[in-house]
């Protein structure tokens, strides 16, 4: 078991002929992910890394039985790609694309909420179920199968923590990057609920950052619903208020969304919070 993706995932790549899409398709196939095809409007009939390219998601689903989709399309067209995946009935949609305007995402979020699809991201590294499926851009070798669930708003910081876990002999069920944008398809609480329900996951790592209140909501959920131990790290303790730190959502606004308040809420919920991401493995022992 794992969450969201495993060896039964039949993955479609939207934007497969682009530079990023093509590169990461190869990486995902090499990892052992069951990539069944791709979509690029106007390029139907071509082949990329031995996988058929279709003009529309619907045609691709009809031909391949795909049940999950990953999107590498550019920001200006990524929302359209998400709508297309939702309407084709995809169970899982992972959007890697960075820089989607927030008002576009607000409409997407509303639309996805009324469907049966689960959206991960955008502006995220996707997810990795070690030994089974890589749906995204996380480097495969940093992870190994095990019983720790990892959920994070970040990219390289997540790799850092996952790699530290692996080196400490603590493998993972699934490593999930939910993205650092202000409006995202899947939040910490959704991910924590999935890990709590996953029988194979025994411990959970949460990596958050300044901005918004998703970590506070997570703390409330952990306190009231979680039986599994959680360790956390929150980035941005030294960030000044009112300034966006790279991620569109990483900003302290009106004095709210500070690392200090998030750390306090998580600590109060019984979460062990690290000062330094390198401490995470020892906090799970």
């Amino acid at each position: 078991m794992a969450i969201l993706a495993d060896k039964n995932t039949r993955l479609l790549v939207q934007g497969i002929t682009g530079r990023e899409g093509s590169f990461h398709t190869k990486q995902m196939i090499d990892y052992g992910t069951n990539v069944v095809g791709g979509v690029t409007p106007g390029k139907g009939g071509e082949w990329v890394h031995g996988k058929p390219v279709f003009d529309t998601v619907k045609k691709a689903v009809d031909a391949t039985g795909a049940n999950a989709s990953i999107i590498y399309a550019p920001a200006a067209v990524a929302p359209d790609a998400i709508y297309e995946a939702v309407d084709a009935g995809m169970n899982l949609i992972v959007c890697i694309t960075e820089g989607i305007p927030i008002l576009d995402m607000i409409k997407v979020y509303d639309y996805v909420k009324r469907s049966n699809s689960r959206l991960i991201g955008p502006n995220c590294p996707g997810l990795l179920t070690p030994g089974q499926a890589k749906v995204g851009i996380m480097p495969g070798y940093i992870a190994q199968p095990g019983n720790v669930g990892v959920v994070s708003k970040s990219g390289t910081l997540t790799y850092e923590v996952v790699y530290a876990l692996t080196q400490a002999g603590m493998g993972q069920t699934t490593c999930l990057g939910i993205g650092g944008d202000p409006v995202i398809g899947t939040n910490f609480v959704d991910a924590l609920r999935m890990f709590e329900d996953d029988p194979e996951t025994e411990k959970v790592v949460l990596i958050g950052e300044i901005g918004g209140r998703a970590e506070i909501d997570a703390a409330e959920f952990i306190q009231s619903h979680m039986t599994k131990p959680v360790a956390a790290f929150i980035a941005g303790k030294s960030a000044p208020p009112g300034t966006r730190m790279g991620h569109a959502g990483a900003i302290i606004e009106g004095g709210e969304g500070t690392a200090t308040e998030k750390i306090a809420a998580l600590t109060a919920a019984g979460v062990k919070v690290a000062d330094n991401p390198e401490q995470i493995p020892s906090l799970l022992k």
Partner: protein
Amino acid sequence: MNLHEYQTKFRFADFGIPIMRGKIASTSQEAYEIARELRGPVVVKAQVLAGGRGKAGGVKLAQTPEEAEEVASKIIGMTIKGLIVRKVLVDPAVNIASEIYLGIVNDRTIGRPVMMASSEGGVEIEQVARENPDAIIREQIDPFLGLLDYQARNIASGINLPHEHWKVFTKIATTLFKVYMASDAVLAEINPLVITGDNQLIALDGKMIIDDNALFRHTDLADMRDTDAEPVEETQARAAGISYVKLNGQIGCMVNGAGLAMTTMDMTKLYGGDDIGPANFLDIGGGAQAAKVAAALRIILADSNVKSVLFNIFGGITRCDEVARGILQALDEVKTTVPMVIRLAGTNAEEGRAIIDAAHIPNLASAATLTEAAKKAVDAAKGAQ
């Protein structure tokens, strides 16, 4: 990206929100001409991207064109919160009966825009939220339907707006949402929306922040960016495709990934204590090619506070040996004696470290862990002080 008051209000007016029909002046002579044209008393308002303009003496009433000229000559060139005033807005003065706050932001938790209003206009909404939260009326907006008329009436009712103004208020509120959507704003505020002595509703001051990610489809708005309001390094970084924020510490940080960049800053503060901390946030993105590293290094070193530089790169898809070569090539282009610490982790980290060590650059040390790297960078910064 922040818009100036005059940019915001002129845009509001384009959509049909009533404003005072003033004009913008870059010299006191222009202010005189505008005041003469407007006939009657005017308000001369500093156009800088900072709050508290009034308190700083940047907003003044003038009864005559001569007075407007004199006031403008004082305001133009003055410094408000570190920003030099280059333009003033000369607006007809208005008789204010009461003031309202009306604004829109995106609520991240519900994933929708929210309109907020309070009868305490002229005050920052954060202050009202702290001191009198019940005074703020909120309406969540369906992104597909927009602000509905009944929601505007809910707000009018909530702030006890006299009935005679409801019709105009509804028009202003729904129009504000239209401007918000059409501008890809992340904040649009009328503060204050005033009821004048002769019973008109006027947007007296306005503020808009535009989503940087949406500027690709708003070239007209992108052209309005005031680069005076940001450190020159930030303008250079944007041009180089690097995400950079200037801070006040001594350790220049160069990192791949925003979360890791924040973490690296935090580590320098954790080990640096009260005196030593990060000089900047910098996310170099994926790849870390020599040209980009060189551009980033120039930007970091342009800050005279920088006493040491910390590179923290986690090689995922990018290999650390490639990154190491890129850094060495960049150091060849950008000569510096500032002490530097490099920490490479992930794919081919050992090969990367070997390349760095073999180069024998006297002011360049390598570190295996983030903790070690941060401590070394802190020590180097302390030693240099």
